[in-house]
């Protein structure tokens, strides 16, 4: 178990390193990185200061070390859009809002996907199954941002039930959470359905029936406990989709999270903020994956740690 965790930690480090290299390389892909890091109208003194700060007068590998060194100290540079504010502070300030939305979306996705997935499997080929497939297919075919706009049009403009944008009350959260969660419902439901089908067809379910266990207990205790393991591995992927979904969805609903921030930063060519968001998001996602893997090893007693 310990070796498994150490190995996964090392892998995580390698991936994070790769992310930093990609971000570093992209900043330098555009020629003089100062063009990406600074506004056009920057003064000579400013340019000089940036040169020293990022070690741009040194060879590339040294530049990378400076970049990593600064990053490890939490220094990702300053925002252009909001001068004087540290890029990392800006991002961390908003991370909570994004996580809040992602959590609500996740709860929504699970609350919908689990019953539909289980019922679809239990009543295979029934009307429920058909409905589930339809929801899944639609969820995977519709672009988030478009659903968001259509929702605003229906529920805010026409029915006037919910606020169009911003953050504040629970009502503000309903639409963005559903929009982000829907895509997850589709994928999660399909996974639960297929692993439930496999589980329900197993010998241990047969044995439970032989023992005289009631159908409800067979579905939720024996079959679901097993079937829930497979979708669990998907949670890491799911977190990354939630975060990614937050970028478009936060933009549509002007939700003051990291996703909205990064889109604003891209528009303003505020590269320091963009690279900070990329690294913070990547770190969050990679750590989530690590946590899920370790959790998975604890939950599934069969897992081998080699």
């Amino acid at each position: 178990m310990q070796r498994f965790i150490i190995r996964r930690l090392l892998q995580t480090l390698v991936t994070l390193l790769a992310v930093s290299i990609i971000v570093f390389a992209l900043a330098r892909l555009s020629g003089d990185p100062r063009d990406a890091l600074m506004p056009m109208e920057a003064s000579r003194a400013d340019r000089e200061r940036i040169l020293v700060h990022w070690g741009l007068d040194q060879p590339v590998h040294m530049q990378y070390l400076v970049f990593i060194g600064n990053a490890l100290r939490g220094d990702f540079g300053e925002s252009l859009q909001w001068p004087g504010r540290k890029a990392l502070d800006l991002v961390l300030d908003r991370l909570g809002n994004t996580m809040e939305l992602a959590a609500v979306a996740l709860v929504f996705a699970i609350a919908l996907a689990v019953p539909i997935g289980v019922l679809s499997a239990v009543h295979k080929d029934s009307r429920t199954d058909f409905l589930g497939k339809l929801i899944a297919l639609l969820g995977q075919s519709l672009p988030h941002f478009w659903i968001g706009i259509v929702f605003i049009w229906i529920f805010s403009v026409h029915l006037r039930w919910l606020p169009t944008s911003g953050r504040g009350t629970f009502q503000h959260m309903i639409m963005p959470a559903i929009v982000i969660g829907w895509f997850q419902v589709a994928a999660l439901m399909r996974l639960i359905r297929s692993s439930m089908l496999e589980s329900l067809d197993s010998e241990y379910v047969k044995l439970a029936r032989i023992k005289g266990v009631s159908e409800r207990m067979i579905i939720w205790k024996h079959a679901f406990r097993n079937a829930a393991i497979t979708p669990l591995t998907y949670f890491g992927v799911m977190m990354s989709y939630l975060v990614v979904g937050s970028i478009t969805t936060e933009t549509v609903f002007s939700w003051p999270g990291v996703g909205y921030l990064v889109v604003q930063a891209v528009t303003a060519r505020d590269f320091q903020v963009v690279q900070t968001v990329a690294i913070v998001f990547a770190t969050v996602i990679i750590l989530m994956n690590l946590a899920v893997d370790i959790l998975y090893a604890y939950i599934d007693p069969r897992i081998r740690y080699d």
Partner: protein
Amino acid sequence: MSNEPTLRKNTTQRANGNVILDVKDLRTYLFTKKAVVKAVDGVSFFLRKGETFGIVGESGSGKSTTALSLLRMEPKPAGRIVGGEIWFYGENILDKNEKEMRKIRGSRISMILQDPQTSLNPVFTIGNQVSEAFTVQEGRKNNQGTLLQRVIDLLRKVNIAAPERRFSDYPHQMSGGMKQRVVGAISISCAPDIVIADEPTSALDLTIQAQYLRLLREIQQTTGISIIFITHDFGIVAKMCDRVAIMYAGKIVEHGPVRAIFNHPLHPYTHALISSVPRMEARVERLFSIPGQLPAPGEMPAGCRFAPRCMYADDRCHKEYPPTFGGLSEHTEHTTDCWRLEDPTWEPKSYSR
């Protein structure tokens, strides 16, 4: 087979006091997209208290479906019991609803599945799964302490060493033979009248197989349960069973006391099967194997199902299913579905001996 003499005495009539299960003309069909598969097609047999009854047949002969039908667990949604009666202590199982069936399953008729590797739920501990057998049937009135003690006693009964420690193990931490003993423990947990063992040893290696069979016999002797033993292995039948039925393509083609069947098989299929069992004393050069295979579900012959593979088959065999001939040998209760037996002196000739 110590009880065989008494067995012979009582055999002329079926419904005597010892019969606890009487299956009459059971039909379980599988409705698939392509065809209706008559997996069990008019099967009748009975079971006495304390005896071991074997059902032998090739894969696909319908023996497992027969077993599952007794518990009303025919493979759903394709499978359906379309006819027959299953009398168990004077009640027809086919008249029961699902809730009543759950009371019967586990507590009165139980089953051991063939694959110990997959028949235990991987995410629950052994103790959890064994104790569930008690709590399901008796409710949660047991307190945890006595429940634990009962589980440990039960595990000890099936020869599991240090059951107190094994209690919190997960299935993947046990060997195949041990898992199968746990499955056996679950099946006898509520002192059932009948245990159906569906090829319980086919997934185990030979030494463990022998150990397990011995354990089953022991349990039977101490508890007096009846066992329905389903297998394709005539060797196991010889060791374990008092009576045996041979199934072929959904029908019982021959039925009788084990010794009678072994010494005087009358149905050509039984004869061929027995000829294919290796015998220590007879040094056969080559085991006999039957040419051809089970008829495909869609192409069931109109007459005797075995006719296409039978060396004695004539025109009538292909067209008409034979009646059941009984009591033709010196042993009563020996019945055979074969046209050849119209000639009372007929016997299939030896293949290899």
